[in-house]
Every structure is written in structure tokens, then in C-alpha cells.
């Protein structure tokens, strides 16, 4: 016996989560691009668009709370909504990291980048890809895919390590660039945290499917 009303509500909520995740994906990608292109206008747009992402998060939360209160979901349905609550909050925080990168671009102003983005660019591309696949795992309820994505966080950690050490070396060589190089550390740290949050989303997907709450890949940072 299908639960038409409940299933329709769940579909609405899932659609909203996907819309939110695409907003976040876009924010991360644009933040890294704007840093590379020194694009203040886009950076300002990312900062103001963050308000819409925050609003979306509260909208999803409200929908989940109403659905839990009115439909009294159980078992897989309940896990699904609880997972959505956590995922929405992770997405919102990821957008904050993207906003952080946008602010760094603004702080750099007209000054040149102290070094090529290299690892930062790759971290950006990889985290966006991880997020996209994590959301596909969510939609398809694919716990195996979610597990595999968690493992990829190690690659991001390694890239972060490489960037961090290279930037420190650069600071030693050119103390005058310390401030701008610090911005680079902040940027890579933001991306590293975004990847951690993708891992958190994957953990929620696994919980949603299997009912098991487990920490899959503990970040080194």
C-alpha cells in the first residue's frame, strides 16, 4: 500500500535538497574560479547568494519537521528525513566555506596571487565532483558508492598537505608575502573542510540506507 501523500512530501524535500546541493556546488566552483580570475564581482555575488542557501536550509528543515510531526514516519522513512536534516546542515556549512574563499579573493584585492593555485584548483575540482557524486548516492540510496567517496577524502588531505608545506616553504623564502600566502592556506583549508563535509553527507547516506551510524573516514585535520 503506497503512502501517496507522504511519498509526495518526501519527493518535494529531496528535490529541495538537490536544488540546495546544486547551489552549493556552484558556489564552490565559482569561488575557486573567482580566486583564480581575481573576479571581485563574482565573489560578491557568492557572498550575497549565501543568504539564499541559508534560507533554503531553513526551508528544508521546516519541511522535514512538519513531515515528521504530521506523518509520523518510521524506520527507513524516518532515517531518510533525519538524514536530510543533517545533509542540509552540512550543505549550508559547505556554502559558508565557499563564501570564505570569496572573501579571501576580496581581501587580496588587486594584489597578485602569491603562487600558482595548483593544488587548490585540483582540490576545488575534486571536492565539487565528490559532492555531486555524494548527492547521486543520496538520491539512489547507494551506500556502497557513499563509502567509496569517503575514501577519496584521503586524496584531498594529501593535496592539502602538499599545498600547506609548499606555502610554508614559500613563506620562509619570501617573508614579505606571508599575509597573501596565509590567504592561500585559508583557501586550501576551506576546501579541505568541504571535502570532510562531503564525507559527513556520505555517512548520512549510509545511515539512511542501512541504519548504521558510523564514522567512515576520520580526517587528519
Amino acid at each position, binding site marked *: *500500500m503506497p503512502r501517496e501523500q507522504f511519498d509526495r512530501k518526501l519527493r518535494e524535500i529531496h528535490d529541495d535538497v*538537490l*536544488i540546495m546541493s*546544486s547551489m552549493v556546488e556552484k558556489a564552490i566552483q565559482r569561488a575557486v574560479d573567482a580566486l583564480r580570475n581575481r573576479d571581485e564581482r563574482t565573489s560578491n555575488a557568492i557572498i550575497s547568494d549565501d543568504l539564499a542557501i541559508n534560507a533554503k536550509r531553513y526551508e528544508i528543515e521546516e519541511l522535514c519537521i512538519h513531515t515528521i510531526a504530521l506523518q509520523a514516519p*518510521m*524506520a527507513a522513512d524516518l*532515517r531518510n528525513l533525519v538524514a536530510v536534516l543533517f545533509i542540509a546542515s552540512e550543505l549550508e556549512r559547505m556554502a559558508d566555506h565557499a563564501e570564505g574563499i570569496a572573501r579571501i579573493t576580496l581581501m587580496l584585492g588587486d594584489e597578485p596571487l602569491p603562487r600558482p593555485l595548483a593544488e587548490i584548483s585540483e582540490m576545488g575540482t575534486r571536492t565539487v565532483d565528490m559532492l555531486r557524486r555524494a548527492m547521486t548516492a543520496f538520491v*539512489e540510496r547507494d551506500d556502497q558508492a557513499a563509502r567509496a567517496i569517503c575514501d577519496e577524502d584521503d586524496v584531498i588531505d594529501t593535496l592539502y598537505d602538499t599545498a600547506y608545506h609548499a606555502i610554508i616553504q614559500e613563506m620562509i623564502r619570501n617573508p614579505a608575502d606571508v599575509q597573501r600566502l596565509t590567504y592561500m592556506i585559508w583557501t586550501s583549508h576551506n576546501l579541505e573542510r568541504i571535502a570532510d563535509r562531503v564525507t559527513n553527507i556520505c555517512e548520512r547516506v549510509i545511515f539512511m540506507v*542501512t541504519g548504521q551510524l558510523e564514522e567512515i573516514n576520520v580526517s587528519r585535520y
Partner: protein
Amino acid sequence: MVIDVTNRPDHGLADRIAAHAETPPLHERIADIAGPVVIEMDGLSAYYGGFRALHDVSFRIPERKITALIGPSGCGKSTLLRCMNRMNDLVHGFRIDGSMRYRGQDLYAKGVDVVEVRRRIGMVFQKPNPFPKSIIDNIAFGPRVNGIKGNTMEIVERSLRAAALWDDVKDKLHQSGLALSGGQQQRLCIARALAVQPDVILMDEPCSALDPIATLKIEDLMRELAEQYTIVIVTHNMQQAARVADYTAFMMMRPDRAGELVEFGDTDTLFTTPRDRRTEDYITGRFG
């Protein structure tokens, strides 16, 4: 946007979830319990004449816990409950196969004193059914016929207090039990069951005729009673099972219409991560 929201898998119970909750082997679906066992069923089948109402039910009821029996109508919950104090003996043509043990003793062995069984394993029914007598007489009747010695007023007060009814009725003990509200009448029936100092209380949908406030009062009372008594409750209200029960048994009707036990386990697990797909479908409202 990369994910196409218009063309993606169905939001119903997806196959992947099904893979985690198909039909695992019986021993994985029937949890063992920690602590002392009060009632133990092994391969229990029940028949009304030629009709088999229960099919091979095996599980154990833990002491001083609340165990809920849930499942769709006709799945044999009430039959199973009534087997626990031989209430079905009153039905012509009723018989069982397998064993039903109470504290290690076969309840259906020859020579078992059925009156004593029902004193130790009391019952509260769906509809409050006080005797058309005074509140005192309702309570005192059981101890009197069971030859329980002691000060009647003490027994009455103790039982009414235990059923959280004393404060409501202490000034009108000589009034008819039928003059009470539905919730109070049900608590009177619980007090009546407690008066004969039972070990187990069986409750057959005890709140189905009560309003939500009276229901919550009975549920609170059940939690208190579980400190001293073993309680088994049949309920159609899954939220009630989730709220009050420590353990839950989910039953279903087989194709031959006999009821079978699908899953038994602690309530937390059964309502959040059931092991069997059929339990999942039932508690998420997609079956029944």
C-alpha cells in the same frame, strides 16, 4: 545542475533498502533477550477446530518488561495473548501444538490449575468491563474468590493506588464502577487485575476505547507497573507500542491465514532498523 531531478529512481522503498531488509533467517529476526524469562513459546501453533490461527511461534517474554504484539488485523495477536493464560480454553474446538511455558512450567500440561494460571497471569480487555458493582467490590471480588487473606480495605487501597486511581475515587468507593469515566473504568479493571497479586498482566488493546489523555495515563501507568510486573500488550497503535514497549513482536498472516511471528526484538531496533522487509513495510504504513 548535474543531477536530473525529473528522471531518477522511485522514492518508495528502493531496492537497495530492500537488500538490507528482505527476510533474514529466523534466528536473526527473533532476538534473544537478556535477563529472566517469564513466558516461553516454542513452535506454538493454535487451532480453532480445523482452522490454524497461529503457525509455529517461538519467542520469549522477559520479566518486568513490556512486550508489545503488533501486526495487521487477523494476524493472531489476540489469539497468542489469550494462549498465555489459557483464555482460549473457553472457545470450543480450540487446541495448541508446541509448548507454552510459564516460568519453566508447561501451561497446557495435564493437571494445571487454570484458575491459578489466570490469577498469576491476569488480563485487561479492550473495552473497560467493570462489574456492575461498587468500586470496592470490583477490587475485592478477585481476592475473595481466590481466598487471598488480608485486610480488604488495604488490598483495595493498594490496588487502586498502583493503578493511579486512588486519588480519583477514594471519596466514592461505594459508588458503582460503571459511574466512572472510560479511562477511570479501565484503570479500575487494571486495579482489579492487580488485586490478586499477579505476576504477568496481559492487555488486549487496553486503550482502544479511550481518548488520548486517558490513553497517555494508562501508558504512564504501564511504565510504572513494569517495575513490578511483566506486561504483554496487544495494540493496533504502533506509536503506542513504540512509546511504551521495551520489546516488540511483529506478527503477520501467512497465505494460509495462520498468524506467524515475523520479527521480535527490542523496540528501538524494530522501529528504526527492522531486519525484515515485511516489518519495514508495515511500520512505514506501506502494508496493511
